[in-house]
């Protein structure tokens, strides 16, 4: 049941990978996220070199996001104009991120930056999500009314040039903030191998104050483009994309994503957010922990100059 991966140059048990793809796909369909933040750490745990894991699973993100976008587009819940602006930023971010990642890898500091990014971003986002959704669940239990939502957007959003109309999102704002968000997501996509949905969705909701219905679909659309560019860049620049690995992950992933999406309707939004927040927080802590634990060997082989 083992299969040799030609780029990763290790052999792995393929049914395990199909199941892993399905589980991550299920999570991604359930919560409407790419699921990359979950996949990369597990692949590394299975013995796949981190650089190959990060680059190869990006195409898993492409596949699950594609099927997600098709579903949301059918419901008219994708703001393509907003998505394209963000994807433009994503392309810039991905270009910079892949170069940065290459440099860090040669410097031997890629592990540190990856672990720190996971700890900081996942820790903060997970903590905030968990806190916010638990408060809401508690309030509902006590039968308190929902507090009045802060509807005002930060004023600086209006002061910037290059204003554009985004009818689907109900916005008339400068194109710069979405573009900047895209850049940020692009860098994360290259360094952490994630789509960046877990950061984009809250940012679109709470900073841009987009119409809630269009947020997930639009972020998925942006993620497809950014991750596709990242994958091509990783393949072209670093030769770290393993097509056999990503195909195996895909097979489980697309099926899992569809099943997950079907389950999503059975839960309340805040319950889903609480569960996702918990997962995000745990993954962040787990990845960050390695910075503090005494390593079993203080010497480590760094990736070569030849590859």
């Amino acid at each position: 049941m083992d299969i040799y991966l030609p780029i990763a140059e290790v052999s792995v048990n393929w049914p395990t990978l199909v199941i892993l793809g399905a589980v991550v796909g299920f999570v991604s369909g359930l919560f409407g996220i790419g699921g990359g933040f979950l996949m990369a750490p597990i692949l590394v745990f299975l013995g796949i070199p981190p650089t190959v894991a990060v680059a190869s699973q990006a195409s898993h993100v492409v596949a699950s996001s594609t099927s997600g976008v098709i579903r949301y587009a059918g419901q008219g819940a994708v703001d393509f104009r907003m998505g394209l602006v963000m994807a433009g930023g994503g392309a810039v971010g991905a270009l910079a991120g892949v170069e940065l990642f290459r440099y860090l890898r040669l410097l031997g500091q890629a592990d540190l930056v990856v672990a720190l990014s996971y700890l900081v971003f996942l820790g903060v986002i997970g903590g905030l999500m968990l806190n916010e959704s638990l408060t809401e669940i508690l309030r509902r239990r006590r039968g308190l009314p929902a507090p009045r939502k802060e509807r005002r957007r930060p004023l600086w959003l209006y002061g910037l040039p290059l204003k554009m109309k985004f009818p689907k999102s109900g916005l008339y704002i400068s194109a710069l903030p979405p573009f900047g968000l895209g850049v940020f997501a692009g860098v994360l996509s290259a360094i952490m191998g994630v789509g960046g949905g877990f950061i984009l969705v809250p940012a679109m909701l709470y900073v841009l104050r987009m119409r809630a219905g269009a947020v997930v679909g639009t972020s998925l659309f942006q993620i497809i483009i950014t991750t596709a560019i990242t994958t091509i860049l990783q393949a072209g620049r670093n030769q770290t994309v393993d097509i056999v690995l990503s195909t195996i992950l895909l097979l489980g992933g697309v099926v899992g994503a569809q099943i997950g999406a079907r389950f999503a309707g059975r839960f309340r939004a805040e319950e889903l957010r609480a569960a996702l927040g918990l997962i995000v927080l745990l993954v962040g802590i787990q990845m960050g922990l390695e910075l503090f634990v005494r390593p079993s060997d203080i010497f480590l082989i760094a990736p070569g100059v030849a590859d």
Partner: protein
Amino acid sequence: MQALPPPPPAIEAPLTLPAPDRSEATTGELRVAAALTDARVRVDSSFRGASIVLFGAVFNPTPEPADVVVVVRGPDAPVRLVKKTRNMGVWLNSRPVLFEGAPGFYMTASTRPLSEIAEFGQLRRLGVGVDHLRIDAPEESRTVTRYGVRDVVVSRLGDDYLDWRRAVIRLKEAAALYDTDPKGVEFVDRGLFRAEVKLPTVAPTGKYYAEVWLFQDGEPQSVSNLTLTVEKVGLERDIYEFAHRRPWLYGLVCVLLAALTGYGASRVFSRRN
């Protein structure tokens, strides 16, 4: 009576064996001959490491016993290492340290521990044994800049050279790339021995060199050289070459495949509703 008996076939047999390097027509001399069961290892999708048997014969007309040492080394490649140090409770990596060349694979198998077979100096001179393995390092440490990253090249006279060197060996041993087996050469019959070369899945591809040494009284008496090729074949080779020769097109294919799979899945599932 006049018909002579045909020449015994045994005389022809040695011709089919690989010719020993340094000892031609020395039937009366102490020497060793060896061959591999498989000189070509194919890495395909079912590759899970390989085990190749090296067999050989010792011709020993002397009454003194002789020892056999098998050394197999894989293609050389630079090795970069980082050392983790603790800074305010956090483990950080040092600047990478570079060894200019270390074998990607190295194993020894012998009839008894190497230290009992020959003297330290002798083993060092021949580069036999993990402790005596040649890992390239210049006399002076310097920094090289490659791809914008400054690496420190280890000096073989530096204070910490041994620490780094031991680390390379330990890490490679942990990955089953370096191995020492003091009982790896087994005599199956008088003068006939076998040893096993175990290649892990992570073994680098390329040309491997095997040396079979015959030691007597701590002196090398004879050596037989063999080569072994590890190569990717079939689909694995095609994918690997595609990914390295036309990386951009390869990336594009990966993305299209992913997008089509996602599209296909959503079509299949939406039809079932």
